[in-house]
């Protein structure tokens, strides 16, 4: 199990976008996903995201691996929401709503259909948020382009570029310690595991300290900090028509979603009333 962050090559719409509208797009999705607690609304957002992925010729299966890896957490959050969600707690006040109890003997943890509906929404929401992991690369690029204080942007992008190097080092350390008889982080009781952590972290930290110095020397030797004000950037930093169009669409979506949120649509009641309509 592991995350593989890579730039997926391609020539689609999403790739042609400048990093800034792309970043805002994903931020937007995260925000509107918070607005809505109804499974149909949130499901529509998820559908849109999947269609966008498909339209850009990015394999859904590959990017969806991350969601699969997080499924234990997803199920857990779903269950917690079924029982503790505001929908459930509110609806459980009227006994006729209660479907069953999770602990029948003590009549604890009532489960209502409203609760289930909202919980589904939360699960979808979680899946979307996790799914959006891929644009991580673009976030970093966006920061650099935004002329974020140059040092901060540079530090972030260097750190990001070193991730595969550190992943290798961490794996090597674990291998090397295993050769001395170390049994890893997953054996023994909790106290054993806490004691096992420094076996990995101390060499890793020391390696981090050494790398930090090498990075510092490298950027100094290449003149970083010579004249931050007059620094040139060889990459194009220009927005084109497609970027402006995307930005405009994003604004519209944001405004519409906010209106819906404040007028009370998009809560779990939407689906619930549909469902109760069906039943009756």
């Amino acid at each position, binding site marked *: 199990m592991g995350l593989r962050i890579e730039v997926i090559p391609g020539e689609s719409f999403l790739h042609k976008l400048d990093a800034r509208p792309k970043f805002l797009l994903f931020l937007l999705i995260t925000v509107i996903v918070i607005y809505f607690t109804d499974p149909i609304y949130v499901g529509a957002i998820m559908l849109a995201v999947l269609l966008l992925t498909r339209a850009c010729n990015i394999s859904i299966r590959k990017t969806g691996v991350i969601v699969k890896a997080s499924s234990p957490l997803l199920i857990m959050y779903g269950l917690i929401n079924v029982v503790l969600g*505001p929908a459930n707690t509110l609806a459980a006040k009227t006994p006729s709503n209660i479907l069953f109890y999770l602990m029948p003997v003590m009549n604890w943890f009532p489960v209502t259909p409203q609760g289930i509906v909202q919980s589904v929404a939360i699960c979808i929401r979680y899946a979307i948020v996790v799914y959006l992991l891929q644009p991580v690369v673009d976030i970093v690029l966006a920061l650099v382009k935004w002329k974020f204080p140059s040092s901060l942007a540079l530090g972030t992008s260097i750190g990001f570029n070193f991730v595969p190097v550190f992943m290798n080092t961490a794996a090597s350390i674990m291998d090397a310690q295993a050769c001395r008889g170390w049994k890893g982080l997953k054996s023994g009781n909790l106290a054993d595991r806490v004691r096992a952590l420094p076996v*990995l972290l101390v060499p890793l930290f020391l390696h981090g300290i050494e790398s930090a110095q090498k990075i510092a020397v490298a950027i100094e030797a290449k003149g970083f900090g010579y004249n931050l004000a007059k620094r040139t950037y060889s990459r194009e930093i220009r927005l084109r028509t497609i970027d402006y169009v995307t930005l405009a669409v994003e604004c519209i979506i944001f405004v519409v979603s906010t209106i819906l949120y404040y007028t009370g649509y998009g809560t779990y009641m939407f689906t619930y009333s549909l469902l109760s309509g069906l039943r009756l």
Partner: protein
Amino acid sequence: MLSTLESNRALLIIMPIFKTKEERGSIWAFGSLQIGYAAAFGGLAFALRALGIGIPIAPGMLMDARDVVAIVGPAFSGLAGAIIIGILAALPSAVFSVQCYVPLTMMHSLVFRYLKWPWYHVINSILLLTVYPTWWAVWYQIFGFIPNFWVAFASNLIADAVYIPSNIILIEILRRYSPAAKRIIG
């Protein structure tokens, strides 16, 4: 005679808590070395999460090793660098944890900056039991993953309590192993 002794004693109590100006340097120091530390520890935190390294506490609950890096790393990188460490540590969990991590890493960088050994351990532990889980619980609420504040608080508290001995052990070993680390952390 007695009053001098007493006022001296008061000074003796306060002085070992806070670092002197020479020991800590400028708060805005953000040269290549701080960038290096920030990039290195941020990358380290990201890498640990990407590899899924952590201590399983309960089925489904993994104590992330990256949080240990996000707590100790800011000691080296200073305030601005702590922002970088926060962003990089948060990224593997998708956009939504950036606002969770960055204020916390900045908070820890300030703790290490101003306090001497062993007071930074004390304050960090207190923060890990109060501010940390509260902040995370707030955001879990906003996102709706765990709707009940106290459940979110409690589940984060358990994980954070495990971070306390991990941090302390890690820092103590680093201070004894490497004179460079000792000079920086204090």
